[in-house]
């Protein structure tokens, strides 16, 4: 139960940040998404994001910042194992499951569903 609450608080704070950017700045939604990925990379490199993941679990890994963190983590690991080429290969390798499932499930959903008014 504590896990759920901690995940809720962590994920909630990340979403509130995005909502504040939407409401009080002119940054477009697409840019906010990119900003969050980059933020995840930076926090991942600095070792801050892993600490947030330790506390929040899925609340930190599921939002876009978590994707950025995975990219950073993958690059660091790959560079340690295979050298500088890891800068190019590590990120996508680590995020392979996420990227492939986004494409696969996105495609399936596009086939089985139709967009509608809210």
């Amino acid at each position, binding site marked *: 139960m504590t896990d759920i609450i901690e995940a809720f608080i962590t994920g909630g704070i990340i979403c509130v940040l995005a*909502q504040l950017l*939407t*409401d009080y700045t*002119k940054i477009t*939604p*697409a840019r906010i998404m990119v900003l969050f990925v980059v933020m995840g990379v930076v926090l991942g490199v600095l070792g801050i994001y892993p600490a947030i993941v330790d506390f929040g679990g899925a609340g930190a890994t599921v939002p876009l910042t978590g994707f950025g963190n995975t990219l950073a983590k993958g690059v660091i690991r790959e560079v340690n194992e295979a050298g500088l080429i890891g800068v190019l290969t590590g990120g996508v390798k680590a995020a392979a499951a996420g990227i492939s499932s986004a494409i696969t499930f996105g495609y399936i959903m*596009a086939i089985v569903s*139709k*967009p*509608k*008014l809210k």
Partner: protein
Amino acid sequence: MSTRTGKQTVVMSNPPVIIGGAAIVGRKEGDGPLARYYDQIVDDEYFGEKSFEKAESRLLRDTLVKALEKCGKSASDLNFIISGDLQNQCTAASYALRDVRVPFIGIYGACSTMAESLCIGAALIDGDAAEMTACITSSHFCSAEKQFRYPLEFGYQRTPTSQWTVTGAGCVLLGKQGDGPAITSFTAGIITDMGIKDANNMGGAMAPAACDTILRHLEDTGRSLDYYDLVLTGDLGSFGRSMLIRLLKGNGIDVKDRYNDCGCMVFDLEKQDVVCGGSGCGCSAVVLSSYILEMMNQGKLNKVLFVATGALHSPTWVQQGESIPCIAHAVSLENVG
């Protein structure tokens, strides 16, 4: 023959008459305060078609058919159809009318298109180039979102100054004679760009254009705002509406209760979660060809200045960092005789 008076205004010598009109809207508009004035409310946002673009075309065509039917006319009675919409290359109108064998004048004035089509239609009739014209515009929330913002599938959060594109089409038939309000003059607007770059704040961008055209119309015609029972802007929304009231006040004009905005009338701003109100080519078109036409025909409104506003940008230009050029055209509608 029409004559130009002042800098931007054209006065009709034999004012063309709005002999009738029709408006068809979507479900959300059908839940709005003007529901009982529309000819048809369609629940299905696809209008029985496979895509939102085709849906909008279908809507535009159905509205023309409905207007002709209500006036007891057929397409062969029309000399011109003047029509436009918000899709790329104005295709909702082109595809809708490809089987209608009537000379077609496709126009683009963004959300000011309805007023623009009335100006052209009235000038053609007053200049003896036509006996009867149809003026028709449409917009569709789902196709406009894809065109100007993001596809619906993306499901993004709306910003506090955003407006809701009206799903609807409005059509009026203009004739040489008949019962109904007449177009006595119009004022073609000039492009106004105050440097606003936020494509989610159209009302704020367009209000100065509306102010400019209203002031110009009053100066050219020597009228005061009190001459009109109602000054009606197209789709400034609540934010742009209060901005226009402020701008006019700064020019010494108090609008009192003589001013309203179609974008604020078409939805219930408090209950319908549309943020600042309605927008789109269809917004002013459906309000004009349903509620306003009905009020004028009943004599509850006798003089209306219809000022449809448009934001003349494209997503490409805004992405390249350009500001939004805006325009407003004013059409003077009066019950004469």
